[in-house]
């Protein structure tokens, strides 16, 4: 059993521990950061005005979670939070492939043609995964991470409830909606495995007691996902294998490169200026 590391100072004094912790935090920060960005691209385009308001609120919450993780990295001496979020190159990002996929075709300012079914399904299953991951962190050897995860659990539960209503109502309504949701689930399932992958640092995460094993995490997710499928009256598809490229070790698509460029465009004009 790994001893509990109570403070940031203690973590800094243990290089092996710090390396593993840093790698894990980047995965979690980048997942939320990039997905929140995808959410913000939907502004003004949601199918219903009230949903536009609710969705942009949840994107904001998710961005807030990313900021908590980047700030924890800053406290650990890895760098300034704004620099970590906006000055790294795309190949240094550690988000899963699923979150960098585009919302549809077109650019968020010019001619976006986005797929609502994909948005619902992606956010819902990412939400279930995130719940599972936060649970898998509840006995982490790094106390500040336990506390941060507990804080996020409440908001996360609310998000999941919201998407659950959407996916159930669409999947259980008419033929067209059901087909679109089914197709969206197929597409999300292609990339889903990228979420669970711990990448090359995986063994260290578990050895340092930072988080439960990949298998344990998958089990938590599977329990939730099976219930979700039942609620939608879908046959359970089983958990997919991880794709060849997961993103956890920096293998990304052009979509992520474009995202990172957009997110850092103004900051890069002058990172030393006060904005």
């Amino acid at each position, binding site marked *: 059993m790994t001893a509990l590391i109570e403070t940031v100072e203690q973590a800094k004094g243990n290089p092996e521990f710090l390396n593993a912790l840093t790698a894990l935090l980047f995965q979690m920060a980048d997942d939320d950061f990039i997905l929140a*960005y995808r959410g*913000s*691209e939907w*502004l*003004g*385009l*949601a*199918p*219903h*005005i*009230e949903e*536009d*308001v609710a969705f*942009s*609120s949840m*994107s*904001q919450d998710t*961005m*807030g979670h*990313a*900021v908590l993780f*980047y700030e924890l990295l800053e406290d650990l001496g890895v760098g300034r*939070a*704004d620099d970590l*979020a*906006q000055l790294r190159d795309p190949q240094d990002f550690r988000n899963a492939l699923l979150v960098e996929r585009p919302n549809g075709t077109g650019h*968020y*300012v*010019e*001619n*976006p*043609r*986005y797929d*609502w079914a994909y948005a619902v399904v992606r956010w819902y299953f990412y939400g279930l995964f995130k719940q599972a991951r936060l649970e898998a962190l509840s006995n982490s050897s790094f106390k500040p991470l336990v506390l941060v995860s507990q804080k996020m659990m409440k908001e996360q539960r609310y998000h999941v409830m919201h998407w659950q209503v959407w996916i159930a*109502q*669409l999947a*259980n*309504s*008419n033929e*067209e*909606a059901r087909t*679109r949701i089914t197709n969206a689930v197929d597409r999300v399932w292609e990339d889903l495995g990228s979420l669970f992958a711990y990448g090359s640092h995986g063994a260290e995460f578990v050895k340092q007691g930072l988080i439960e094993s990949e298998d344990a995490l998958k089990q938590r997710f599977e329990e939730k996902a099976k219930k979700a499928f039942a609620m939608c009256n879908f046959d359970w598809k089983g958990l997919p294998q991880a794709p060849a490229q997961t993103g956890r070790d920096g293998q990304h698509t052009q979509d992520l490169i474009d*995202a990172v460029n*957009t*997110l850092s*465009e*103004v*900051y890069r*004009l*002058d990172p030393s*200026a*006060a*904005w």
Partner: protein
Amino acid sequence: MSQLVREGLTEAQYQAKYEEFLAKIDSGRKIEADDWMPDDYRNQLIKLISMHSVSEIMGALPEKEWVPKAPSLRRKLAIMAKVQDEMGHGQLLMRVAEDLVAEYGKSREDLLEDLFTGRLKFHNVFHMEAPSWADAGVIGWLVDGAAIITQTMSLDTSYGPYSRALYRICAEEKFHAQHGESIVLALAEGTEQQRQMLQDAVTRWWPALLMFFGPPESATTIKSNQEQNMRYKIRSQTNEELRQIFFDKYVPRIFHLGLTLPDPTIHYSEEEGKWIYQQPDWEEFKKIVKGGGPRSVQRLDLRRLSYEDAVWVRDALLGNKVAI
């Protein structure tokens, strides 16, 4: 269909109701959605409130580009909160407008249709370009600043539901103005590049800001309902009065930051007790409000397309009105 026919009233009955209505207005009482009101009062409100609603919804779009690009995590969060509030304000006002058009058998669908076909106008400023981060700051500072002035005036409007929506909106606008000021001050106090970015944005937005409050009664051929709106206590100040308040509040601060305005003549005249300035091109205003602004077509299309793409969603949900 005239109101007399629709409600089955005689001339005399209508007159009696009208007198009662005016007495209510004059005594400062509020009119509610289910109170009797003359069609011209209702129509003025529909025009004003749906324009306000759509301006909030469309107003988030010039800032949308800058949401992901905001140059720090804190700014990203703040601007996300701001645009969300704006959508929320649009929703509140849309609901108020919907309850008014219900009398004519219309719904949100019809109001949005009017928006997409250009029958529903929205504020000229949201037809404008926002090509730099400084534009996002200027929008928060000056455009929201102008909106706050109009909204504050409208707080004691005679129509109850509008007044209540405005109270909610005003509570959140304070943060928007501060967010805008914070961005602008950072730029004004920053590098040469940042200051220039800010100056360019202010120069670019000035004409649109002048036109925000609408034309003075004298200036134009544009038909204005200001007088009738004031009789009905829908509003209490004229376009020009509001614009003067805007100058009082913001021109000194613009100069304090060392910025210039594209109108070299603007100054406060002690003798006349008002700001003297160059009138913008009001014919240009008319054209822009009708959808001829630089970004008008593109932004409306964006909205319309996504609305059409989502018909399947609304159909699916409507099927669940009884099922769930």
